[in-house]
């Protein structure tokens, strides 16, 4: 079974930099695009449900005020 539907975050950042570089050749860009397309979303949660609720509340209050 594959580890995941994506590869590492570091590889994703390197691929993103390669794609933005105007000097990069076509083959390199193709390989970089492949790596970038497989960069996974982060798994680690940072917000509890309560913190997420407060974050949304703060945003809405700021917008309303």
């Amino acid at each position, binding site marked *: *079974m*594959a*580890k*995941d*539907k*994506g590869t590492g*975050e570091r590889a*994703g950042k390197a691929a993103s930099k390669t794609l933005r570089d105007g000097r990069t050749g076509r083959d390199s860009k*193709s*390989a970089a*695009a*492949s*790596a*970038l*397309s*497989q*960069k*996974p*979303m*982060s*798994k*680690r*949660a*940072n*917000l*509890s*449900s309560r*913190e*997420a*609720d407060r*974050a*949304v*509340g*703060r*945003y*809405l209050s700021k*917008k309303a005020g």
Partner: protein
Amino acid sequence: MAVATARNVFINCAFDEEFAPGFHALVFAVIACGFNARCAREMSDATETRIEKLYRIIDQSRFSIHDLSRTELDPEHGLPRFNMPLELGIFLGAKRFGDEDNRQKRSLVLDITPYRFQKFISDLAGMDITDHGGDPRRMVGRVRDWLVTVSRRRSIPSTAAILERYDSFMAALPSILADEGLDPHNVAYADFERLVLAWVKRVPPRR
């Protein structure tokens, strides 16, 4: 065997950065319609293998959404990505060979175009595949319409109402994440899900 909950919707799609807008649209639509979004990215026991986690989530889900649009050749290896079709197959197997509860399962199969799938899973010929053209807003509408049909719930808001909340949430998300000191370009699934739940609770549909 667990009882498949009629509130659980299993989401089977790619989790890479390129498909992140689509994945976010699917999760938002499911939650905004009043259902629980379930997917392999949710937190679980680290000792549980990925396939065991998938079996458990599929077993617990009455409904499922399978987006096959990222089933394509990897340019680096020249091989197709099979995870999404595999998980669709597991769900179809549970529905076909499972107990009475599992036979109640219902699926929405999405792809970019209506007939592309016939080139890589011809065995699905005759099934109703729904196209979305790769547009996240259209994905939201497709999921909403399907959930109305299969769940027969009258409490599900209109497509326009859900899209209005989706647009406002996606516009607000970068600011919310930045205010929390989080990277807007790499939001964790659990954080995204919790923020959607909070948004849906605090921003009721207007119509």
